[in-house]
């Protein structure tokens, strides 16, 4: 008898795949985050009433907006990187540099967006 094949989410996340693994995980979180946003958005419109209003307050909350923007932006930029590398496999020799470029684009864009969201949320 042998141990069952069992790779739990926690076990998988503990694998030390360095930078590429981090982008892989964040890409999945990004996709899931956007799916949650769309679901909440549809449910809020569909259900209406007190529950609808409550769901509205959830996805209109500025913290949730930062989370959703993170998900959408990272998913888009990382998806673009993967698409380019898939179309031009020779560039995979520079995969590490591609990830650095991805972060170099993501961080300032996300930072500015967070600044604007926080300013408008706290500044009124």
């Amino acid at each position, binding site marked *: *008898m*042998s*141990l*069952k*094949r069992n*790779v739990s989410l926690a*076990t*998988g996340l*503990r*694998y*030390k*795949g*360095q930078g*590429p*693994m981090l982008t*892989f995980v964040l890409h999945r979180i990004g996709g899931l985050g956007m799916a949650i946003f769309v679901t909440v958005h549809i449910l809020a419109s569909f259900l209406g009433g007190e529950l609808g209003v409550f769901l509205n307050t959830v996805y209109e909350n500025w913290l949730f907006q930062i989370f959703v923007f993170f998900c959408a932006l990272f998913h888009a930029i990382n998806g673009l990187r*993967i698409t380019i*590398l*898939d*179309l031009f*496999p*020779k560039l*995979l*020799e520079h*995969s590490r540099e591609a990830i650095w470029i991805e972060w170099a684009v993501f961080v300032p864009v996300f930072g500015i967006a967070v600044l604007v969201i926080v300013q408008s949320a706290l500044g009124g």
Partner: protein
Amino acid sequence: MQVTLKVFRYNPEVDKRFRYETYTIEAEETDRILDLLEYVKGYKDGTLSFRRSCAHGVCGSDAMRINGRNMLACKTLVRDVGDRITVEPLLGLKVAKDLIVDMEPFFDNYKKVLPYFINESPLPENGRERLQSPEQRARFDETTKCILCAACTTSCPSFWASDQYYGPAALVTAHRFIFDSRDEAASERMHIIAETDGLARCHTAYNCTLACPREIPITKAIGELKLATITGKVE
């Protein structure tokens, strides 16, 4: 220096679930992880089980997770991983005992890509080699280096999710034959790897390339296969 070696243990005849055992060992910085495991087996606990054969990075028997990453125990030095070392079996395959995993699903996937030379044409008139230019040979040189250690396949999140996925090692082998100018079954292999459990499950996570002890650019090879199956051109 003193090294703390934490080892994944599972004895199917006694244990219901796995456990870890920690050993403190006197070691040199230049000792390999395989040396530490041999020491534990020889002097501390003879029941410890792990695979090893050539012990020189050629046979690929001793691939395992060392401090959370797939590596060959015979190619990894203590100084590469520090003095607190955790050794675990490869992910995504059933554990038979301690660090030994059941490699059958891995080899089943390997067989799917027809991992052998196919050429039904008659031999050249002199009855000797089917010649190819150095450029033609160089086209698939990198993917000939695979030692089937499974470090790549078991580092792949897609394989963790489903062992039906052929995995990077099988795809590397497909690359090795598809881009070989002497082989005549490229289209058949391309058809096979274009199945749902083939190329489509590669999400360019890149773990395979980082895990490969032979430094094969696996993701690049898979990328070339993706492009070849889309365009239908083997160039």
